[in-house]
């Protein structure tokens, strides 16, 4: 992966180096992340795509330092050049305000018995010491900025009076109020209608460009990631198995798992007789087999795949974690769908 080396340059917004994490369950440590490295520059959008348990949410939590208490983490997570895991006190609070987090289900993250206005201004009033009236004015402005009409009325309403799409706009506006340097969006539109999704995505995209924010966009939807992000990273069993320019993922992905994801998703304009199906189900990082973690489901697996643990290596314009990539993609091999 790209490392920032020149000493004078700004450190990248987000930089993960060989991050591994385990969570204590009972008397066992269960791996949730295994060797995750990537860099996101200011103004850049990275999509992290994977199925449940692949570690994509854990990656976002590691960046925000929101991992559960009983977590053991190795490797480094740097945000704005600072090692996130060494922060405490004021530095940690500063870190938290640099990182805006948008969750999948806004309802679960908004206090149902307090007004939208209370929710939006809470941290401004409590931690930034802004006067309540001033905070409300800013909140109204922020709501207007994400396309909410009559924001003053909305501020007086309660969460249950707002639709899911509107609540997600409230979430985005609230995050932006903290003037973050980066946004971590974890499945922000999964619970929304398609037409609403389109609007929320457009707002996120606009905000990122306007404010030069780094964006980490987590989703299970490869197509969505491709349209929102500059680059896409695909995770499987707690590892990144491929990274590539988003525009190339659909046609040009090179890891068998990415190919399988592309083939498994029905396409609106190109329906298939039968969807390409991967046998089995996604493997939890803690249950990953020896060798390549995908080999138990991989149509190209050979014996060696169960023995050699592949590294994430540059290949064909991206990075791919597969020891057979050259064989699979040699000129004579038919292009697998």
């Amino acid at each position: 992966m790209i490392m920032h080396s020149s000493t004078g340059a700004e450190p990248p917004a987000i930089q993960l180096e060989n991050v591994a994490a385990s969570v204590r369950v009972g008397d066992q440590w269960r791996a949730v992340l295994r060797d995750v490295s990537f860099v996101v520059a200011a103004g850049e959008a990275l999509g992290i795509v994977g199925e449940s348990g692949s570690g994509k949410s854990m990656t976002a939590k590691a960046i925000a330092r929101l991992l559960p208490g009983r977590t053991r983490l190795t490797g480094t997570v740097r945000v704005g050049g600072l090692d996130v895991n060494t922060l405490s006190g004021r530095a940690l609070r500063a870190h938290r305000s640099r990182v805006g987090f948008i969750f999948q289900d806004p309802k679960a993250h908004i206090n149902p018995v307090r007004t939208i206005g209370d929710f939006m201004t809470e941290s401004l009033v409590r931690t930034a010491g802004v006067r309540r009236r001033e905070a409300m004015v800013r909140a109204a402005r922020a709501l207007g900025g994400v396309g909410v009409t009559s924001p003053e009325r909305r501020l007086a309403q309660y969460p249950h009076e707002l639709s899911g799409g509107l609540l997600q706009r409230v979430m985005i506006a609230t995050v932006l109020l903290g003037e973050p340097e980066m946004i971590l969006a974890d499945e922000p539109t999964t619970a929304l209608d398609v037409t609403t999704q389109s609007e929320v995505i457009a707002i996120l995209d606009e905000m990122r460009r306007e404010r030069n924010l780094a964006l980490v966009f987590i989703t299970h939807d490869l197509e969505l990631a491709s349209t929102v992000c500059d680059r896409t990273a695909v995770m499987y069993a707690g590892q990144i198995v491929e990274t590539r320019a988003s525009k190339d993922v659909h046609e040009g992905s090179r890891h068998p798992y990415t190919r399988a994801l592309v083939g498994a998703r029905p396409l609106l304009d190109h329906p298939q007789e039968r969807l390409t199906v991967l046998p089995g189900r996604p493997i939890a990082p803690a249950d990953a087999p020896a060798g390549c973690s995908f080999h138990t489901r991989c149509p190209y697996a050979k014996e060696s795949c169960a023995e050699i643990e592949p590294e994430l290596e540059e290949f064909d314009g991206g990075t791919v974690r597969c020891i057979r990539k050259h064989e699979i993609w040699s000129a004579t091999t038919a292009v697998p769908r």
Partner: protein
Amino acid sequence: MTGSSATPILSVHGLCKVIRGITIVDDVSFSIPEGGSLAVVGESGSGKTTVARMITGLTRATSGSITLAGAERSAPTRSATERRARAREVQLVFQDPYSSLDPRYTAAQTIREALRMHGDEHDRARLNRRVIEIADMVGLSEKQLDSRPRMLSGGQRQRIAIARALAADARLVILDEPVAALDVSIQAQVLNLLDDIRRAVGTSYLFISHDLAVVRQVTDDIIVMRQGRIVERGRTAQVLQNPVDDYTKLLRDSVPQPGWRAKRSFTV
């Protein structure tokens, strides 16, 4: 698929639902041929789930008629016997199988219960064999059969819900966003499974979804609903390829695919 059979498995005419003066479903008519698969597409508030609830007898239609397997079924069921009879005609599979499965029952118990309720098989050994047959069909392993829903993944839970519908031997299965909560690779397995079952058993589907690509994959016909009304209908491929109604066009344009750009309307 075969739209030629004489009596449709389901036909609804002029279906309306008004709750406290608000029209939720407004003059909806459609039919599904035996072995057919109809998509009901729309966003939240379009009335698509209310239509399903009226067909299954969970809620009463304000007006209009529902004919299921040749019998008038417009009123909700009144007795346990009626509900069981209705259940043999139509089964529901929900988006979140977790909340629709009994947490205390293993997968095998859930399937066996449905078999016992709706079949005339009471011999224990034969029942167990049938449980395994059905589990095989939906791809549940023996270990999963002995697990409770809590221990299983979303895809596996959805397989139990589908297995239960199969066990009840329903001729029509209403699927309400059945793959929306599933991982992409599992989604593909379930969609293929639904296709296989329809081919093998001839079950008809009413497939409620917001996902046009999924609908394109598993249905023959489609109705598009908005604010309780049908705004467009036809063959699924036709409607999705060349939508006529503006709302259908908007839905289509909102699907992220290569070259797609999110649009912002500025009005909420």
